[in-house]
């Protein structure tokens, strides 16, 4: 008869186990739904811009290290203060590069600078399409294009 008791015990434990499995699954579902809602809200608020530049390295701290710069559709970059993005560095030309958003993607074009414009470490000689996450080097300043 101990066999029968054991079977009942095992059956009970097994049902408990499966119940616990599904409890976990329900909790996962709950968390997923919660996150979905907050992600929606977050997306709403971050949809405003078309992109931004994160400053990774800036020896003269202009633009300041670690800041992000919100971008418009057309951005000029250079040592001249009239540029949309003003860069303080001896290796940067006055009108160094143009960063433009055309349709769906970002493009960068060198404006005949002395030291050139680099994308992901490669010097560009014509307008180049940028992906989010690409690294833009102008003089000694390194920036990254972010969403």
């Amino acid at each position, binding site marked *: 008869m101990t*066999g*029968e008791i054991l*079977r*009942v015990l095992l*059956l009970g434990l097994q049902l408990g186990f499966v119940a616990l499995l599904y409890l976990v699954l329900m909790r996962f579902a709950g968390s997923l739904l919660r996150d979905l809602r907050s992600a929606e809200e977050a997306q709403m608020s971050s949809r405003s811009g078309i992109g931004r530049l994160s400053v990774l390295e800036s020896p003269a701290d202009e633009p300041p290290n670690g800041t992000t710069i919100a971008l418009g559709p057309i951005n000029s970059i250079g040592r001249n203060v009239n540029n949309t993005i003003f860069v303080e560095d001896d290796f940067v030309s006055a009108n160094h590069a143009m960063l433009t958003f055309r349709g*769906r993607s970002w493009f960068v074009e060198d404006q005949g600078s002395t030291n050139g414009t680099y994308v992901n470490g490669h010097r560009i000689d014509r307008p180049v399409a940028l992906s989010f996450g690409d690294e833009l080097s102008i003089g000694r300043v390194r920036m990254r294009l972010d969403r």
Partner: protein
Amino acid sequence: MIATNIRRLGVYLMLAFAVVSGSITWWQVVEAHSLSTRPDNPEVLAARRSLLRGTIFDAEGQVLASSEVIDGLSRRTYTDPAMTHVLGYSSLRFGSTGLERTFEDILVGQTDPNPIRDLVSDVLARQPEPRDLTLTIDRRLQDFAAAQLGADAGAVVAIDPRTGAVLAMVSTPTFDATPISGDPDGAQEPMDALRNDPAEPLLARARQGLYVPGSILKVFTAAAALDAGVISPDTTYPDQPREEREGFVVDGFTIREHDLGGIEPALWPLSEALQVSSNIFFAHVGLELGAERFLEYARRFGFCGPIRMGPPERALSVTPSLVTGSLDGDCGPFSGDVDLASASFGQGQAAVTPVQMALLAAAIAGDGVMPDPYVVRDVRAHADGDAPADEILDSFGSGGGTRVVSAEAAAATRGGMVDAVNGELGRLYAGQGDITLYGISDARSAGKTGTAQLGGEQAPHSWFIGFAPAQEEATPRIAVAVLVESGGSGSDGAAPIAGRVMAEWLRLSGGD
């Protein structure tokens, strides 16, 4: 934009997960039931290890196989090695064969599981109830036939032509299945010995052995040609006496008569042709019947395809017998007239099982109706003791058989077979092979010997098919086929055995 693509990817992956869920559900819910009853399911195998199997009784209630559970392992004991090739074996190590396999689920009483079973019956630990089987085979006749074959390799098949009930089905050499069905660890060695034995004791010759039939197939040729109206009992072939001496030229190939034992050739009709077993006569008959009709009759008699002994899903398998080379499990076309003429007297490409030959004899004995053979008579509740229980749960009987030739054709063939055993020429030809029914007063047998020439130095296989009682007005109660491998001429090896087996049965079954 990447975010959009990711969302689409998510949809695709969701679909993939849904499909996979579906396939899991398919096996775990929809197919679970049908899977659980398949014999090679490990669950079934495992259950068999510990479950009691039902007992198998012979027709008279003698125990043939019984089981007991020792230390959680179910072990099978077989009482009679002569029965092994019918019962098969149920080994914990090698699976099961024979009736043990085809009636597996009934013997162990495996119940069909369902989803609720998992919850309920596990708790109740309900054990399936084993069932017992009763066979149509009479152990006394089986043992008698096995003793007649003795140390020779061969087979004896005896069928009641009225019902198809198999009375005896012996294959030799045989073996005791108890050692390989007992302790699984001790089973390997005896099994290896059986597998390596050059005498091939594992082969169930009665059902699975294919042999050249020789002259016994002339019975088929005669019945087919009579039924088709190609010959009458009086038909003769004018050229036959000359051809007996000089040979019969077919397609440029000369067919020669075998040794007639000093009998002078004459213009023989059917009865005489059967008595002296004339090859030339039956070559003519076969050619006149033609290849197409020859094959049509062959299929009617059960050649060219598997024979089922028993209810369809539980039938013992019988290897298809052939009259030509095989073609995808069917009889292929004859390669030419020589091939057809040779098959007509049982040589050529013909290859048959003893069971098929017993059915041929039974069809003639049964006035042209070939019975449906069966081995298991009924299924009963499990008996505790050595006697079968009274409660019959399921029974199998005569399927009614199939008419293969007209009663007239059967009667004419039967007459020839009676003469082949008892006629003047028959006795002369058969020499010392007197196969009248020893010790049985005024009962007669009918039959036909066969000597299957194998070519070369090999001694021929010895055949006999026949039935008894066969005197006029009598209804035959037993039809037999006897094969003795390398047993010499039909009258030397097989005929005496067949005669004694038929006589023994008439004695056992109470008539004379």
